[in-house]
């Protein structure tokens, strides 16, 4: 049995759902960022699967994946800086206590 597109799409869907679960349920702010990285990687896996199976001569999906990797790196840097700043401000990383915007 050869590798199919559906295998990669199912794997990416599973990774995406795990990432969403972690994004919602985790209370440590750093773990929330890790879950966002999981989500971006799931999308990247989708893009690479489509690029290989539907568009093998113009590999535009790989170009998009490189852009997604770039944006993910920028997002990780800024997100961790924000976490450090809010940790200095509130002295905790608990997501439930970041209620500065709650009236």
């Amino acid at each position, binding site marked *: 049995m050869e590798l199919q597109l559906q295998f990669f799409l199912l794997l990416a869907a599973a990774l995406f759902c795990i990432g969403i*679960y972690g994004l919602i349920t985790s209370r440590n702010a750093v773990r929330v960022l890790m879950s966002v990285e999981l989500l971006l990687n799931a999308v990247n896996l989708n893009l690479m699967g489509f690029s290989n199976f539907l568009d093998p001569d113009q590999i535009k999906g790989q170009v998009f994946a490189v852009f997604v990797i770039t944006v993910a790196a920028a997002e990780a840097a800024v997100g961790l800086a924000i976490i450090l700043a809010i940790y200095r401000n509130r002295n905790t990383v608990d997501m439930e*206590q970041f209620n500065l915007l709650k009236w």
Partner: protein
Amino acid sequence: MNLAVDLQLICFVVLGVAMIAAALGVVLLDRIVYSAFLLGGVFLSISGLYILLNADFVAAAQILVYVGAVNVLILFAIMLVNKQEDFTPLGNRWLRQGATAVVCGGLFILLATMVLATPWALDTTVVIENTVVQIGRHFFSDYLLPFELASVLLLMAMVGAIILARRDFVPEGIDPLTRQEALTLPERPRELAGTPSDPR
């Protein structure tokens, strides 16, 4: 790059199981340091899957950027906020997690049904050998503007991260007595901003 078909399938199964297990570990484990290292495992497995998808350049970029930069950055962040705190338990925790799990499972079932039901327009032309040349051609012809914008975005992210993460320095009035000491900075670290008054 054509491995034998069975070997491809075995590699896919091993990498997929490793990736899902490591991702579950990232989400479910209690110690956040274990989660960070397992996140590196997820990135490495995904890089292997990219190699199975004939994408050598993106696999190398994945290892360089994610394992080399993002994972190390997350480890730095964990060590900078290394506060051993036990989160105050919330009410209805199991209800929240159960509802989230049900929603995520439903989403996965929905996506799986869509994936299996859609007739994909598979293109079975020959796979190009040299992906780096093709990606570079895309970058410098039809994706030139996003490429340059990505560089500007990285610059902005770098400046923003530095500004957000550094400690604020309050310049003090320069004392004429200390002006002769040319090697001391006329700044001192400010006290930490207010601690939470009412930890709820």
